[in-house]
């Protein structure tokens, strides 16, 4: 971290420290009438990470691991219960709604489903210019220029070809490009991409990921949420693997993929299908279901499914630290490493 910060000459763009976000578990009518104690799901249970400008961090994990809640907490779309979120050096954990408005210009999110994130009644022009109008930015001509520039950045060039189209006149890949363009007109510093390509055809995915790659090289910080380790390995600078509300491993993407330290990461990597039929792998398939964050096991939360757990793992809740055979900046939360 230290050399990374030095190389960047300033505070990280995003600094999350000990973030905890929980949701109440619905008790139902009977539970409420019987005054059963309110139970909580700790969707995010103590997450810390940093994201620099010009960097892409992939938050990887299975459904229910807390990756989307982490993103929503960072954007202040949901309130967190503990920890801090610093954006560009300023603590935004407890910002009120008035201050959040200015902040939201600088943090944007794109979603998985470009078929749902665009208003079907709006032409592309309106989708792109509306955020500027809402924030009272620029004259009509300036807004038009911004919209055109954003379309060019997302490869929809020449822009005149797309400005007057409706979403139904665009392919899935083009819609996602418009969604990205709409997030760019406000010139954000942070872009959160929540499964940006998982709804798209394989042949157009790379194009979308290249746009994100290009935006990163222009200095945006990008937090990509994905379940797809192959995509994370290929496009992200760093990978953080989440399990039951915690980051269990974090490091440079290559390090995490080629030298995984946490047994969960190792299992996850072993089941990712490889393209080459000659590389038939021996998957290490974990039994049981994706765990439920309502009932988090004591000690290490992975120990009931862990192939190398020892009795101590039932008691010790491991912290992220650098294992002995990992490179600098590569951390894992496992007492066996």
């Amino acid at each position, binding site marked *: 971290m230290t050399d990374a910060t030095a190389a960047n000459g300033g505070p990280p763009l995003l600094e999350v420290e000990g973030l905890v976000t929980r949701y109440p578990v619905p008790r139902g009518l009977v539970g409420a009438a019987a005054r059963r104690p309110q139970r909580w799901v700790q969707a995010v249970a103590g997450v810390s990470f940093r994201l620099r400008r010009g960097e892409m961090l992939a938050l990887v994990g*299975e*459904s229910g691991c807390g990756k989307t809640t982490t993103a929503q907490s960072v954007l202040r779309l949901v309130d967190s219960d503990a920890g801090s979120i610093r954006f560009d050096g300023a603590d935004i954990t407890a910002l009120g709604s008035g201050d959040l408005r200015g902040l939201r210009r600088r943090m944007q999110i794109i979603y998985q489903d470009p078929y749902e994130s665009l208003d079907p009644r709006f032409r592309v022009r309106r989708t792109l210019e509306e955020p500027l109008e809402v924030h009272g930015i620029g004259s009509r001509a300036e807004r038009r220029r911004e919209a055109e520039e954003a379309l060019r950045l997302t490869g929809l060039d020449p822009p005149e070809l797309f400005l007057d189209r409706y979403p139904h006149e665009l*392919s899935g*890949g083009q819609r996602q490009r418009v969604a990205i363009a709409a997030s760019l007109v406000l010139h954000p510093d942070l872009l959160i991409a929540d499964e940006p390509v998982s709804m798209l*055809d*394989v*042949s*157009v*995915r*790379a*194009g*979308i*990921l*290249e746009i994100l790659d290009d935006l990163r090289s222009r200095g945006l910080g990008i937090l990509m949420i994905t*379940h*797809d*380790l*192959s*995509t994370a*390995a*290929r*496009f992200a600078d760093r990978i953080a693997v989440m399990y039951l509300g915690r980051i269990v491993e974090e490091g440079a993407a290559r390090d995490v*993929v*080629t030298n995984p330290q946490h047994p969960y990461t190792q*299992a*996850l*990597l072993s*089941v*990712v*299908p*490889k*393209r*080459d*039929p*000659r590389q*038939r*792998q021996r*998957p290490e*398939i*974990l*039994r049981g*279901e*994706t765990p439920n964050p309502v009932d988090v096991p004591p000690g290490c939360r992975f120990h009931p499914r862990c192939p190398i757990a020892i009795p101590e793992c039932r008691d010790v809740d491991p912290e992220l630290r650098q294992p002995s055979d990992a490179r600098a900046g590569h951390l894992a939360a496992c007492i066996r490493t």
Partner: protein
Amino acid sequence: MSLLEVHDLHVWFDLARGGELHAVQGVDLGLDAGERFGLVGESGCGKTTTILALMGLLPPSASVSGRVLLDGENVLARGERSVAPHRWRDVAMVFQGAMNAFNPVKRVGEQIAEPMELHGIAEGRDARRQVGELLERVGIPAERAQRFPHEFSGGMRQRAAIAMALACKPKVLLADEPTTALDVMVQAQILELLVALADDFGLTLVLVTHDLPIVAQVCERAAVMYAGEIVESGPTDALFHSPRHPYTRLLFAATPDLYGTEEVASIPGAPPRLDRAIVGCPFRPRCDSAFGRCVDDRPALKPVAAAQAAACHLNDVPQEVPA
């Protein structure tokens, strides 16, 4: 003779606004007993329509031509009358999103027993016993038959959907995107289960998916579909290591691999519309190697190597010796 043969299958859909959509444009397939076969392609390529045609489950707006031979008998010959006796009994299917297709107010066990009763295979206590055995075989405790679908996780519902497809002990199992929308660890469990079932029951497994790596890992042979036709078929090893159609090569190149270091590149453009006639090679506008002949001469699927076929004019051009 193969167990299941498809000859020159065409499917057209009547469009509400008039005209037709030519969804499947002359598909030929031969499936051997007990093999694991992948049908790969992107959305709209006709892969799901193809297997729905094999099941005789296309909507009334569809018209079909061609022959589907099951053990030599053309099941398309007399429409519903000739296909119905084989549906579920000989050829069964796990639908895309089947895990969400259970009737929410009926117990899972009753739903699995339905095809057995329909085909007179088992009833009452006997059916319940067989349902229990099937559930155990797919990794669900037999007593869960009494539960409702909402009490199952996504992975368990998919296992139950597979059990339902196997209720009449079919020879061929068509699985349409059976792991899409599942977490990668659950996906691995389901794929492991499908392979084990295919081995145990001597099932012919047809895996329909957009996901090349899954096919590479699970299937011995595969066919790649584009714009309603098979553009290449062969052993999965050959498709990856020596593809003979540019689409196959580019599709692999567009798929990121965990340990891959080469550029991941998208394929520019989009597939052609299927509601108008296609002139020349359907892939030509997106192809990186097209030449004059591709413009107006539609290539046919032709043998190019042992057990490998491709629909590309490049295979008629003498190849330069690779460096």
